[in-house]
Structure formats: structure tokens, C-alpha cells
């Protein structure tokens, strides 16, 4: 794709093209439409809404945990329920909220930002969504029938093995990972292909919006990290549990530590998988609301890419207490600290952007500032954890709980709330209430710090993680009570957000396509975007096409509008297909059955094969259209 020079003036039949596009991109009506949707806006929104529901569920679980810990020797929740609660909380937040939420934002925004009509593989996208939904339902079906996993979200062997966790609880956890990893891999694959091959003409590598860069890096991380969890949870854990292999059985030559290595080879990149897209969101928000191009674009991109690489070299810092050889540990300390440089560069660039731009203090910017405060603090405690001697003290204590909530809530959730406020007009066509948004921010900010800051001190004072109770003489009561109060304040913040979103959706100010005067291409589409996004595909004449004067902008003509077609791609699909749903359903049933009996895998894969054949069977000779 070479940049366009001197494009000719052409005539466009705006109305006629719009009508043709509406016809070929319309949804099937009724229930069938619900199961056959393949447009990225609809699926992106489903991802976002479903993941948000899981955020609420995970949040309520956290609240119950905080209530249990509010005072010493609290009889509210017993150990069995508590262990299920914290395992389900962690699993939900990592696998059912954070990753799918980021992917949903990517699915929704990336095609818009790239100026195309849909993701590269719309049916795969639909399949991925259904797998994610079924996985979530599966986990909660277990949880509600008192079969919730209870071995922690990283399910260390041998505690999670057949001997010490009989029953189906851990099987459900391990198989739930299968569902969500398939879903994540689907989205990663389609986003990579979309970003690499479907950018608007003129959008060279140096013109890709920061958010798309972040999704590209994230997708590559998913591609190389998820296979590790496949090996850990599906092969090591599930095979050990169902057919009696010996991967973690020390008596037969296996090694429980290998599970930890492989799990964290996934688990550490997982953190970056969650928070790299958030960095892209922060960049988008900052550049839009400071009204200037992001400072240091090449440095920002390089930081993202290097974070993606270094993220794979840190996993052992989760295992410093296991007693590995010292020289290797020193390397992992150095690598863990090195990644702070990449994050630091980005923070400096944002500050420089704000310093030299025209900051408009609207709600999204509040959340960005909250992000800077919380994330920098979390990053610095991360530097502490990288130092082995300090890690040996605070590892597996509430200090670590505080640290990763600062990094994940500060680093991902605050940018995400900022992103909701920022892109809500694009999603719904209406603005969110800004005044209420600022109130919402302050409630969340205060509640968050009140909840998690005391945990640093609790950890140093000896409070270990994952304990369901503690004796009064330990003196941990007051700080825990404070944290519980903070958790209730966070709940209020969440309610304010939901109220604001629901009310704004109906009564909010009409936004128009470009309420913030943004620079990237998503603001060229209608709000909410049509199924086909753009009547005429835009051409990226600069890094910020929307900041180019209108008379210099260029659009593409000649893409066929009488069928689902986008530039540099094949036909999207002949008509909205049901096969992704059926395939996901069959595979899902098989996977669920296989947690009870291994032999279910055979019919599962057979049935899935049939689903896939239906999916791929060429409908009719090409060139003939109904």
C-alpha cells in the first residue's frame, strides 16, 4: 500500500451506494438474526457487555471476600466457600472479564480505526464469542452447584491434581480455560490478519493508530502465550486428572514445578495481554483530549513491541520462592526491571503530550490521570517485587494482592472506564453525562485506594494471601475493615457508572459522528456505525486523517456494495451464517462432557468436524448471487 498522491476528483452517488450497502449488510430479522450476526460492531458490543456482566459478578465475589475479611475470626463464609470465591473471582477477572473485554474493544474499534468494513474473519469472530460465552456459563454452572474451582486461579499442582482435589471442581476450571483460550486465539488471529492486511489505503505502518498497534502486539502475545496455558491446564492438569498421566507426579518422574514454569510462561504475558490494549486506549484518549498528535509515536510503538517481547522473559519472578538457581534468578530480576523502562517511556511521552497540548479536562482524561497515579504506584511496587530479597518477604502476601490490583485495576480498568466514556458516543450515538462521570471517577478513585493501599501494609505485617480468616491478635483487623469500606465505595462507583450509562443511552445528548473532534478514522463513521461502517472507505492521508482538512481527504470507490466486500479481502460471507454458533455449541458440549468422561472428546471432535464442514462448504458457484 503506497501513499496516495494527487488523487483525482470523482463523483459519488452517496444515496444510491448507501441503499445498496444497507441491503447487503442487513441483519437477519428475529431470533435467527441473533444467532447469525457476524458484523464486528454487534459482536464487539456483545463481547463488551458480556465481559462487563462478568466484571460485575467477579466484583460481587470480591465484595463477599472483603466482608468475610472485614474482621478477625469472622464466621460469615466458611473456608470451602471462600476458596471457591477467590478462585472464581480470579478466574473470572482474568479469563472472563479482562481478556474478552480488551478483545471486544479491539473487535469493535480496530476495523473502524483502520477504515474497513469488518474484521478479516467474521465467522471466526462469531465462533470465538460463542465459545467465550459458553465457557463463562460453564464455570458459573459449576459455581452455582457448589462445584466451583477451589485451587486458586493458577491451580498449582499437586494441590489441583487428582489426589488432593478429587471431584469435578478443578476439571471445570481447566476446561473453562479451553473455552476462553479458543476464544482469545480466534480474536487474536483475526485481528492480526485485519491489522496486517486490511488497513485503509495509505495507512502505512507509521500511520497505524496507537490503539491498533497495541491490539497487534497484544494479539501476537496471545498467539504465543495461550499455547502455554493449553499445555499447562489441558495437557498437564486435565490429562493427569482424567487419564492418569504423570506430568506433575513426582513419584513417576514428573515435576510439579514444571507446571508453574509453563503456567507462568503464559501467566505473565497474560498481564500484558490485559494491559497493553489499555495503554493503546490511554494514547487514544490523550491525543484526542489534548488535541495534539501523540508525542513520540515511534518511541511509544517501540515500547509496546519491546514490552511484548520482554513480557515473555519474566515468568520466573513468580517463582522466586521455589528455590531456583541464583544466577538464573538474577537474570529475571534484570528483565523484570527492564520492562519498567518500556512503561516509563510511555508515561513520559503522555506527560509530554499533555504538557505541550491543549488539555480538555473531560471525564476520559480524569480516568487517564487516575491511571497514571495508580499505575505508576503499582509499577513501582512491581520494581520492588522484581528484587528477589524483597520478593521473598512479600511474595504471596497481601502486598502482592495490592500490587497486582494497582497494576490491573489502575493499568487496565481505569483506562477502560476512560475508554467507555470516550467511545460511548461511538457505541450508542449519545454522550455520557460528563458531570456524573467526574463524580463516578472520584468515587472509584477514592474507593480503590482505600481498598488496596492498606493491603501493602498488611502484607508487610505478615498477612498472607488466600486466607479466609485471621486471629484478632495479629492486629490486621483495622486495615482490613478499612479495605472493606473501600470495596463498598467501589461498588457505589460501579452503580453510578451503570446508572450513567443506562440513562445516557436513552436521554444522553446526541453525539454526532465526531463529538470530540478526534483524529482517527472511527470518528468518520456514523454514531453508532452502520453495519458497513463507511459508505466510501476512507484513505489515510496522514496519521490523523480526521485532522486533515476535509477538502484534502480521500475516499475509495469501486468496492462492490451489492455484497459483503471490503478492501484487500475476500467476500466476507454470503449471508449471515448459523454454522459458527452450531460448531461452538457442539464443541462446547463435547468439552463439557469431557470433564466428566474423557471419551466425550471423540464425539465432540467428530461433531465439530461436521460443523466445520458446514461452515466451509462452498455454498454455490461464485459469481451467481441470489
Amino acid at each position, binding site marked *: 500500500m503506497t501513499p496516495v498522491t494527487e488523487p483525482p476528483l470523482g463523483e459519488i452517488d452517496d444515496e444510491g451506494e448507501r441503499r445498496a450497502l444497507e441491503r447487503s449488510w442487513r441483519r437477519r430479522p428475529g431470533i435467527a438474526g441473533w444467532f447469525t450476526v457476524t458484523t464486528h460492531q454487534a459482536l464487539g458490543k456483545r463481547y463488551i457487555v458480556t465481559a462487563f456482566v462478568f466484571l460485575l459478578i467477579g466484583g460481587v465475589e470480591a465484595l463477599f471476600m472483603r466482608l468475610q475479611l472485614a474482621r478477625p475470626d469472622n464466621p460469615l463464609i466458611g473456608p470451602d466457600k471462600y476458596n471457591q470465591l477467590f478462585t472464581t473471582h480470579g478466574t473470572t477477572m482474568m479469563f472472563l472479564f479482562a481478556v474478552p473485554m480488551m478483545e471486544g474493544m479491539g473487535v469493535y474499534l480496530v476495523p473502524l480505526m483502520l477504515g474497513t468494513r469488518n474484521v478479516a474473519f467474521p465467522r471466526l469472530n462469531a465462533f470465538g464469542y460463542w465459545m467465550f460465552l459458553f465457557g463463562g456459563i460453564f464455570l458459573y454452572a459449576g459455581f452455582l452447584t457448589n462445584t466451583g474451582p477451589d485451587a486458586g486461579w493458577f491451580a498449582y499442582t499437586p494441590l489441583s491434581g487428582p489426589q488432593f482435589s478429587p471431584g469435578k471442581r478443578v476439571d471445570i476450571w481447566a476446561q473453562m480455560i479451553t473455552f476462553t483460550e479458543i476464544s482469545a486465539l480466534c480474536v487474536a488471529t483475526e485481528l492480526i490478519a485485519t491489522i496486517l492486511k486490511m488497513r485503509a489505503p495509505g495507512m502505512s505502518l507509521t500511520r497505524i493508530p496507537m490503539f491498533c498497534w497495541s491490539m497487534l502486539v497484544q494479539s501476537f502475545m496471545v498467539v504465543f502465550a495461550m499455547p502455554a496455558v493449553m499445555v499447562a491446564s489441558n495437557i498437564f492438569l486435565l490429562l493427569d486428572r482424567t487419564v492418569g498421566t504423570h506430568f506433575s507426579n513426582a513419584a513417576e518422574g514428573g515435576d*510439579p514445578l514444571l507446571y508453574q514454569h509453563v503456567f507462568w510462561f503464559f501467566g505473565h504475558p497474560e498481564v500484558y495481554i490485559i494491559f497493553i490494549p489499555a495503554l493503546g486506549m490511554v494514547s487514544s484518549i490523550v491525543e484526542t483530549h489534548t488535541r495534539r498528535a501523540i508525542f513520540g509515536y515511534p518511541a511509544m510503538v517501540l515500547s509496546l513491541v519491546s514490552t511484548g517481547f520482554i513480557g515473555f522473559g519474566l515468568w520466573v519472578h513468580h517463582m522466586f520462592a521455589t528455590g531456583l538457581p541464583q544466577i538464573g534468578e538474577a537474570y529475571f*530480576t534484570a528483565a523484570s526491571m527492564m520492562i519498567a523502562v518500556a512503561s516509563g517511556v510511555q508515561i513520559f511521552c503522555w*506527560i509530554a503530550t*499533555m504538557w505541550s497540548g491543549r488539555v480538555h479536562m473531560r471525564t476520559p482524561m480524569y480516568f487517564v490521570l487516575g491511571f497514571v497515579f495508580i499505575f505508576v504506584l503499582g509499577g513501582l511496587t512491581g520494581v520492588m517485587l522484581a*528484587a528477589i*530479597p*524483597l520478593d521473598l518477604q512479600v511474595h504471596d502476601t497481601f502486598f502482592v494482592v495490592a500490587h497486582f490490583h494497582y497494576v490491573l485495576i489502575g493499568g487496565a480498568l481505569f483506562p477502560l472506564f476512560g475508554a467507555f466514556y470516550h467511545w460511548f458516543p461511538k457505541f450508542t450515538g449519545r454522550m455520557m453525562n460528563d458531570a456524573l462521570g467526574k463524580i463516578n471517577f472520584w468515587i472509584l478513585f477514592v474507593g480503590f485506594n482505600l481498598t488496596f493501599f492498606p493491603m501493602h501494609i498488611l502484607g508487610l505485617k*505478615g498477612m498472607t494471601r488466600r*486466607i479466609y480468616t485471621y486471629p484478632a491478635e495479629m492486629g490486621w483487623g483495622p486495615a482490613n475493615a478499612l479495605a472493606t469500606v473501600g470495596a463498598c465505595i467501589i461498588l457505589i462507583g460501579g452503580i453510578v457508572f451503570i446508572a450513567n450509562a443506562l440513562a445516557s443511552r436513552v436521554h444522553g445528548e446526541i453525539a454526532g459522528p465526531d463529538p470530540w473532534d478526534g483524529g482517527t478514522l472511527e470518528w468518520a463513521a456514523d454514531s453508532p456505525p452502520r453495519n458497513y461502517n463507511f459508505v466510501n472507505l476512507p484513505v489515510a492521508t496522514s496519521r490523523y486523517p480526521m485532522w486533515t482538512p476535509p477538502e484534502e481527504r480521500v475516499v475509495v470507490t469501486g468496492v462492490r456494495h451489492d455484497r459483503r466486500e471490503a478492501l484487500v479481502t475476500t467476500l466476507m460471507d454470503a449471508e449471515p451464517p448459523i454454522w459458527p454458533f452450531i460448531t461452538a455449541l457442539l464443541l462446547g458440549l463435547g468439552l463439557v462432557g469431557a470433564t466428566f468422561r474423557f471419551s466425550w472428546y471423540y464425539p465432540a471432535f467428530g461433531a465439530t468436524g461436521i460443523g466445520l464442514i458446514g461452515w466451509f462448504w462452498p455454498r454455490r458457484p461464485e459469481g451467481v448471487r441470489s
Partner: protein
Amino acid sequence: MTRARTLFIWAAAVALNGCGGHQQSALDSVGPQAGKIESLWWFFLWLLTAIFLIVIFATLWALTRRHRGIEQEPLERIHLPSGETEHRLTRVVAGASILTVIILFALLIASVTTGKALSELGPKKQGITVEVTGNQWWWYVRYLNGDASRIVVTANEMHIPVGRPVMLRLNSNDVIHSFWTPNLHGKRDLIPGRVNTEWIEADHPGRWRGQCAEFCGMQHAHMAMWVIAEPEDQFERWMEAQRAPSKQPSSASELRGRDVFLNNACVFCHHIAGTPAAGQVAPDLTHVGSRLTLAAGTLPNTKGNLGGWIADPQNVKPGNHMAQIDLPPGDLEPLLDYLESLK
């Protein structure tokens, strides 16, 4: 500046010490290992707090610099700073990044130096070796000795001599646990099939609490242990007392209690030296009366607590592996007398 600093130190001290509990704290080091880590901690804390404040002030400054009342200004499509501003910013950002690298390098050196010092601490002096084995959910403790008859076995507490390094050999019988007495040292995992070692040393006499730090199942919360540091002679006396077989019953009630013990399922799991009870899967009870706590730090060791524990273990510590034995009325009291007499 000095006043602000004093105030800050004071506030930090209040925050860190205000929640009581010094017997399980990484910030009240009593040995060289924890001491070195604590020094490193304060170094990291002050340096990183300074960096945090600088970043936050820079951000706020960037915001307030010239944007007051900007909402009233006419909207411009894009704001383009001058080339000179860009150039200056590039230098500042590059400088800040280089500074970050330098600071991190300093922190890395401090960390590795401390780590090296820690690894050299133990083996220099004549020490003793204690084997600690993790079980769901209690600690098996064994003092190794070349002479098998001088080996001491106890559970859920460890006496150590002041000023002598103690090498812990850490192993597990079931799942992964982690040994952590923060006042003495950082944590080290107990992994089935492996032996990890760790050196600890106490500078002065005292009692410190430790707790399992790796989630190990249902009663992870109730897997604590006490480390009791004593002067050398007192420690030796304790060792001698522990080496002795159990005390013979000295009253009718204690005698009856011993029979109750020996005639019930207790003997399948527990060991009492000097009696036929030779179970190996639960804590050794030869000197149970001398211990500070019951059920791995769950309850203080009193007769009442012991009675409650034996009568209904699942009530005290739900999910634990101690069998519930329905004793006929009148048997519990003598049993308690007997067990409490095993000093």
C-alpha cells in the same frame, strides 16, 4: 523540606506500625537475614517514593501549566506545538528515560548485592540443621543428629538457639507449602519431591510467628507455627527434655487418660514415645503439653481448647484431617489430663 520529610517519616511509621502485631512482620527483623532485607526495603521505599512524587508532580504540572479556562477558548482542530518545543520535549523525555535506566541499574545492583550477602550468611558459622516437612495443615519438625537416638521430633513450633545459624531443610508430604517467618527471613517453598534449604538466625530471644504462604487447600489459613529463640543453655535444656520419652502418668485420671488414648483410633495417627502409640501421619504428641498452640497455631494450648478440639475438630478447623472420635462421657476429661501432662 526537612519538616515535610519528618512528617512523612512519622506518618509512614504510624501507618506501618499502627496496626499492631510485631510477631509476624517483615519490618521488625530480628535476624541478619531479615535485617538485610529490611535495609534493602527502606532503600527501595525512599527512592521509589521520590520517583513516584516526581512523576505525579510532573503530571499535575503538565495539566495546570497553561490550560486554565481552555474550555472557553475557540476549538482548534489540532494543536501543533512548535518545532522547538518538540525538540526540547524530546530531550527531556530521553533524559528521563536514561535516568530511569540508571536508577533501575542501581536498584538491580542493590538487590543482587543483598541476595549475594544473604546466600553467604548461613554456612559460615557452626549451625544446626532442622528438617521441616509440610503437611495439610501442620508442620512436622525434626532436629537432625548423627546419633539417631538424639533426634528430636516436634510439630508446629521450633526452638532455636540465639545467635547460631539454623539450616532448614524444607520438604513436603503432600502439596506445595511455603515456610515464612517474616521476622527472621523471607519465604521458601516446600515442594514434594525436592529439598529446599534456608538459613535463619535470631539475634535475641523471643517468639515469632510464621505461617504457610503458599495456598495449600482448605485450611491454608490455619497453618501457622511459632519459632522460639532461646539462649544456648535454655535451648539445650529444651532439647534434652524433648529427647526424653513421654512422662509416665502420675495420677489415676492421667492413667485412665492414657488407656483412653491407647484404646481409641488416636494411635493410628499419633506417636507418643514410650507408649505403643506409633502413628506417623499426624503431629507427634510425646511432649504436646509443652507446646504453645494446638492445631498448628489455631488455638492457644489450654485444657479447654484441647477438649473442644478433640471433641469436634471439624468445628475448630473445618476440613482438617483429624478424625472425630466419639468418646463415651467421662473419657474426655482423663484424656485431657493425660495429654496436658505430657510436658
